[in-house]
């Protein structure tokens, strides 16, 4: 009975007793959730348009961040460095399309998936060769990102919000809204959705798959750069980031691989669930559940709702 009390009742008593702590925990969860959602968004973009699960999305985040910092270290002004980095991400998109996707067109998905493994390790090696293996500081101030924190008194305690986190949430929201608008209402957006739905029909109306793939990988590169800046500003830019990027997997299982809103909601659920789980239930097992709770939730979803919250249920007509 004692254990049941500790698991089922005590955490909620604690939440009620110190609501300021609960708000703080939820906020922190929300912030890491936004970053998970951004990474997951990169995955969804590419998965929808080409059916490829892009294992390299995580390293693209690191690579974009390192390139940005690298340009700045060479003495390029921050804003110009962002533009140059975007150029590098565009070159990356073009070369991935030319060298990897085009020769492998019509191959089974698993081959393309393995090819993205190849891209991952190529980028790791290439990145270490150019930028070295040491973590680097993100040029947050130079990019006019706010620092410090605001505190306010509420619910009988203090809640502290980092300004950079607020900025991250706002920028992520703007970017997602812009992407949604672009996808919904323009010719290229319509072509992207068309390719996501049916390759052969898209070809028959004159949409060039090659061109769409470049656009999609470039868009994923832009998302990666934004994620790299935001995440880098909270800690550092280092190759360790790409392991955290694997958290996007449970996010995608939760949200559905083909759904942009799913990536966002899934990211937030995982982020908040993780922090709350760690804070209230973690002590019961000696802490550290933050690192596996996401996968545990994903496992539950795979058992009961494999298409995720927003994914398409695939019904095969026989």
């Amino acid at each position, binding site marked *: 009975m004692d254990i049941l009390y500790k698991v089922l009742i005590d955490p909620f008593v604690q939440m009620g007793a110190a609501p300021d702590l609960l708000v703080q925990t939820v906020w922190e969860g929300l912030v890491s959730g936004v970053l998970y959602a951004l990474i997951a968004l990169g995955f969804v973009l590419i998965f929808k348009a080409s059916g490829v699960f892009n294992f390299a999305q995580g390293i693209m985040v690191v690579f974009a961040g390192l390139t940005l910092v690298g340009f700045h270290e060479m003495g390029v002004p921050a804003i110009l460095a962002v533009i140059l980095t975007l150029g590098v991400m565009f070159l990356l998109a073009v070369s991935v399309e030319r060298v990897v996707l085009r020769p492998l067109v019509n191959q089974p998905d698993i081959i393309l998936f393995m090819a993205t493994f190849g891209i991952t390790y190529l980028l790791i090696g290439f990145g270490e060769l150019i930028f070295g293996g040491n973590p680097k500081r993100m040029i947050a101030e130079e990019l006019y990102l706010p620092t410090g924190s605001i505190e306010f008194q509420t619910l009988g305690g203090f809640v502290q919000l980092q300004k950079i986190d607020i900025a991250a949430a706002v920028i992520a929201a703007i970017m997602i809204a812009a992407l949604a*608008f*672009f996808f919904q*209402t*323009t*010719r*290229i*957006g*319509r*072509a992207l*959705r*068309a390719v*996501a*739905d*049916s390759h*052969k*029909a*898209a*070809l*028959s*109306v*004159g*949409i*060039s*798959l090659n061109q769409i793939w470049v656009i999609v990988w470039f868009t994923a590169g832009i998302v990666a750069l934004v994620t790299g800046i935001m995440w880098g500003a909270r800690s550092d830019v280092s190759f360790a980031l790409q392991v955290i990027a694997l958290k996007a997997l449970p996010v995608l299982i939760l949200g559905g691989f083909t759904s942009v809103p799913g990536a966002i909601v899934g990211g937030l659920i995982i982020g908040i669930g993780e922090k709350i789980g760690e804070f209230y239930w973690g002590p019961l097992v000696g802490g550290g559940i933050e690192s596996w709770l996401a996968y545990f939730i994903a496992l539950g979803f795979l058992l009961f709702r494999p298409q995720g919250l927003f994914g*398409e249920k695939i019904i095969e007509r026989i």
Partner: protein
Amino acid sequence: MRAPGDGHGTTAGEVLLAVEGVSLSFGGVKAITDVSFDIRKGEIRAIIGPNGAGKTSMLNVINGFYHPQQGRIAFKGETRKRMRPYVAASQGIARTFQNVALFKGMSTIDNIMAGRTLKMKTGFFWQCLRHGPALNEEIEHRKFVEEIIDFLEIQAIRKMPVGKLPYGLQKRVELGRALAMQPDLLLLDEPMAGMNLEEKEDMSRFIIDVNNQYGTTIALIEHDMGVVMDLSDRVVVLEYGRKIADGTPAEVSADQKVIDAYLGVPH
């Protein structure tokens, strides 16, 4: 309906597409062997034959999905090299598929608008802003799409996601998407498969109207012989990947080889 093969005077038109000695195989399987025929401007050309005769493969070759190992294809007098489907589309070839291939998550309007992709020219920059030229262009093309919607009598479903529509209507939307491309040559792969009599009559009417009003050249594959005989100006008959007959509906239906192919020959 018209009498079979009356041809409304267009059978003598110039050759729009010429297929010469085309052979296609997949590994050891010969899908098409040395087939030649032509499609003339303004006509309705039917390709018929028993199951597995290579009709859809033929359409895929014309459309650029498959590349024949031998033979050549000339469209508008220009012999084409190895080409991709989106190039065929930009040259003015549109098509529908045997098993409807629509963008299921998108609405009827968006599906037909997708057919306008090649006609829309504003650059990426304006597209991103959806302002100025891009917005004007969007409105102009939307008008054209509304005309097609009126023409095909699908006003009621314009905002519905096509995945939810009944099969007959999906086929109609797919035709609409192909028409949105304002093609010179329209390829229809079994436009009436799986339809009931009323839907077939509607579809036949649309095909004839497209041909008459827009002067679009049409090549179609169809199993319903009644429909083929009513609609088409000339018929090419394939069997086991070879051409066994070519001519007006009256000619081919009297051809002994065609009768044998369809009814079987006693051995």
